[in-house]
């Protein structure tokens, strides 16, 4: 039993916004470009930070690196999210029924939960492992999970076009 009815998605796909996404010559490629740009910022910044937590370049301060990457993570997420929602609306019924989309959304949710755990439980202890010290095991697990999840999200996203 789907959470949201097919009829709802069909009505969404018939909306003027969805029609504009599909039928304008440039809106779709523009949104795809913004989506890739957003992903590049988001994924790039996440990878740089996660690798540091995993134990690479321990001469870099974790807290300072976090200050550097955080705005780029959020900028990238905002761009990818907004363009992703619009692309989804362009063909909502098909996308909602696509297994790769469903898997991708669940993975994004898991990545968000993982980030929330890191933010609330692990980052507050950063002073103890900010420089030249291995991060605690839990933080390394969280960083590894984050890498694996975001990498899988990229793959699931790319497979949307190949799965019905």
């Amino acid at each position, binding site marked *: 039993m789907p959470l949201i009815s097919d009829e709802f998605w069909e009505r969404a796909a018939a909306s003027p916004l969805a029609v504009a996404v*599909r039928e304008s010559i440039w809106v779709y490629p523009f949104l795809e470009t913004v989506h890739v740009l957003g992903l590049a910022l988001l994924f790039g910044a996440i990878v740089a930070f996660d690798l540091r937590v995993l134990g690479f370049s321990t001469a870099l301060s974790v807290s300072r690196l976090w200050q550097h990457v955080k705005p780029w993570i959020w900028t990238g997420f905002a761009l990818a999210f907004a363009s992703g929602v619009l692309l989804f609306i362009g063909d909502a019924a098909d996308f909602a029924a696509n297994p790769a989309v469903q898997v991708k959304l669940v993975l994004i949710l898991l990545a968000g939960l993982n980030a929330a755990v890191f933010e609330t439980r692990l980052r507050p202890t950063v002073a103890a492992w900010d420089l030249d010290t291995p991060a605690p095991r839990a933080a390394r697990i969280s960083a590894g999970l984050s890498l694996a999840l975001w990498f899988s999200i990229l793959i699931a996203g790319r497979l949307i076009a190949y799965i019905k």
Partner: protein
Amino acid sequence: MSRARLLLSLVIGLALLAPLAPGHAHHTFVTKFDGSKTIRLAGVVTSVSYSNPHIHFQVQVGGTTWTVETESISAARGHGLTQNVLKAGAKVTIAGWPARDGSPALGLHSISISGGPSMTMRRTAH
């Protein structure tokens, strides 16, 4: 550190394997259509969805309605397949690759519009 390296090599290994994932190609096209067979049809266009990322239109051929997939709006316009020529009622001869699942669907190779232009949209199904 060794754990980190292990994880990194795992991620890189997966990245190298990704091209082997099912359906990897430049395009979804090759996963849907069988590039080793070409068929030719003549019929009348009954409806057109002139949309991104791919234009679809239907062609009535005898008692069968074929769904034909072709390029994006900008690529189609570049080839001259505008909404002025691809419209309901147009008599067309089309060549393309049949759907792998056996449904009456075709990936468009070329189209010739009666009283209008002929164009090759795509040379291979890859």
